[in-house]
């Protein structure tokens, strides 16, 4: 059982689908997260390496402050790898040196990711704002009725159950 931000991910589930149990992460975001960590589609949660688990946890704890992902070069058809006398650390250091000189904009959609309590807070604030400005949407939330123009003669059961001002 892997615990990430207090959420338990079952071992035998595919990592791509286990991540959807986190509030605010759906299938597409989960797929993007797996790609970011180089987790293949059929990887189960028990097969995740400790490094992948810690980097996932550290990313999800604050997606906005995560360092931007560098764009690593990909081999051309006639690429010849450097000899083994050049260490991997040296190659990595050279690459990062050149990369930092360029000012690359971070266009990663995951940097704006909100999950769990932050997302619930945002939703609560949105509903509170609608109420504060006295809008129709706010009034409907307050009356526990459908907000988006659905029929109420019949079939408003979910809205009556869930629509609240303090919804999350």
């Amino acid at each position, binding site marked *: 059982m892997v615990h990430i931000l207090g959420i338990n991910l079952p071992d035998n589930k595919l990592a791509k689908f286990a991540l959807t149990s986190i*509030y605010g992460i759906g299938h597409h975001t989960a*797929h*993007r997260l797996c*790609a*970011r*960590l*180089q987790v*293949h*589609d*059929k*990887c189960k949660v028990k*097969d995740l390496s400790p490094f992948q688990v810690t980097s996932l946890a550290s990313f999800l704890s604050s997606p906005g402050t995560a360092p931007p*992902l560098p*764009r*690593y*070069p*990909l*081999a*051309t*058809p006639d*690429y010849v*790898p*450097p000899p*083994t*006398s*050049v260490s*991997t650390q040296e*190659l*990595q250091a050279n*690459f990062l040196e050149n990369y930092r000189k360029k000012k690359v904009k971070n266009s*990663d959609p995951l940097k704006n990711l909100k999950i769990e309590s932050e997302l619930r807070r945002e939703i609560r604030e949105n509903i509170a704002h609608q109420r504060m400005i006295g809008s129709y949407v706010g009034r409907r939330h307050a009356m526990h009725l459908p907000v988006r123009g659905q029929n109420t003669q019949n079939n408003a059961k979910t809205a009556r*159950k*869930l629509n*609240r001002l*303090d*919804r*999350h």
Partner: protein
Amino acid sequence: MSLLSAVARAGPSSQISVHSVQRTLLPSIVPTLNLVDAKRHKTDKAGQQKRPPTGTPSQAGYLKREEKSNRWRKALLQFRPLPANQLDHPLFNPETEGKLEVPAFTPKTITAADSIGQAYEIEPPADDPLRIFGLPRSVHFEFRILTKPYTVVRQVTKDTVEYLSRAKKQSSAQNRLVMTGRAGCGKSFLMLQAVEHCVRDEWIVIYIPRAINLVNSTTPYAYDIRTQTYLQPAYSFQTLQRMLTVNKAKLAEIPLVEDLVLEKQTLTKGTKLTKVIEFAIAERARTVGQSPAILDAVMRSLDVQTDFPVLLAVDEIQALYGKSSYKDPHFLPIQPYHLSLPRLILEYASGKRQFSRGAVLGALSVSQTLHPVPLELSDALGLEDMHAFPISPFQKRNKEMLLYTEGLKKLAVPEKLTLEEATGVFEVWKGRKAIGREGMYYDEMLLGKYTESAGNARDFVWKGLLNTLEA
């Protein structure tokens, strides 16, 4: 009644017992079924009382459904025939399992003058590629049903064997073939025959039966800054293990051509390849991450040596020329030539790397709908007839991929079995008692099904012979 339709049908919702299934299936072909009782408990929705949801809507899990752990459903296991010595039920008689006596598949017997249309049995030892590398799905299933690997030699088999005997003395850059043809015409079987022939003819064989598994994101991957590609350590490790098992005696005579520098030690030039791979396997936890580098070093040593010809055989090769399911950290798709193992195969297939003696054989798999034959490969092999619509010269081709398709030649597997070859296939299924009954007109069935299937091998067996009432 078709065997497959019996396997695939949903069945009644009551408990399926072994005996009821035996009545519906073919006792003559599959003596007993290693079936687990497939109980399907219907969820008693009417009986369950709906509990009122607990907590307030603001709490997590308010609308969460009950866990489905109480719904137990065991999947129907794939049919595995029981060994003959366990057939002691009074239902079976000594003739239930047909005894087919055919010559063994060896390079001498298949190149004999009268071998066309003759069935042979591949007698695989413990380290045979068939057992170690595995088989494509269709071939695997057919051998499972037949219980032994029987194969019929065709004219195209003899031509391929002759081609390989010439390729034995030439560099692999001059011998790069891709088997093409209609669905079900026998490409995978022909490739298997070529692999089995080469193993018995003292070649070093590397056989990848399902290249789709290299690009469908089922194995781990990690970027490597040295090679500037995404390494596939698990698959490279598995390939090394399998290569060692199949070719142990020959690899023991081939030395490393240059020093192999690993993280914690260096394997010096001259170390025998068996020692190199055994080291990798023994220290698995430490070296699995470096297995792509070890595999590369082993392949470079095989390139240079001239003692043994090397065969690189890849089935479903069109998957390596299309799109992969892997994504890079920026969620862009990774091209197959940026994955370590597909890149290795593409380099040999395009002649950028070559064995001093040997050949590269590929086979298309036209039945794979998720991995269709890509444009670049179609262009290189001249497969305009395969596509439903004319290929436009204005459709975009991947320029880098075009470089990897240069110099590929096609081996067009004949669409039809000749009547002689079809008779051989028929004799195999008849000999195994899969089809037929007492007093049957076998020639009527053979000619009828041969005509209906227009000579297509797969249709002849699966839609023809096994779809009759006598099957």
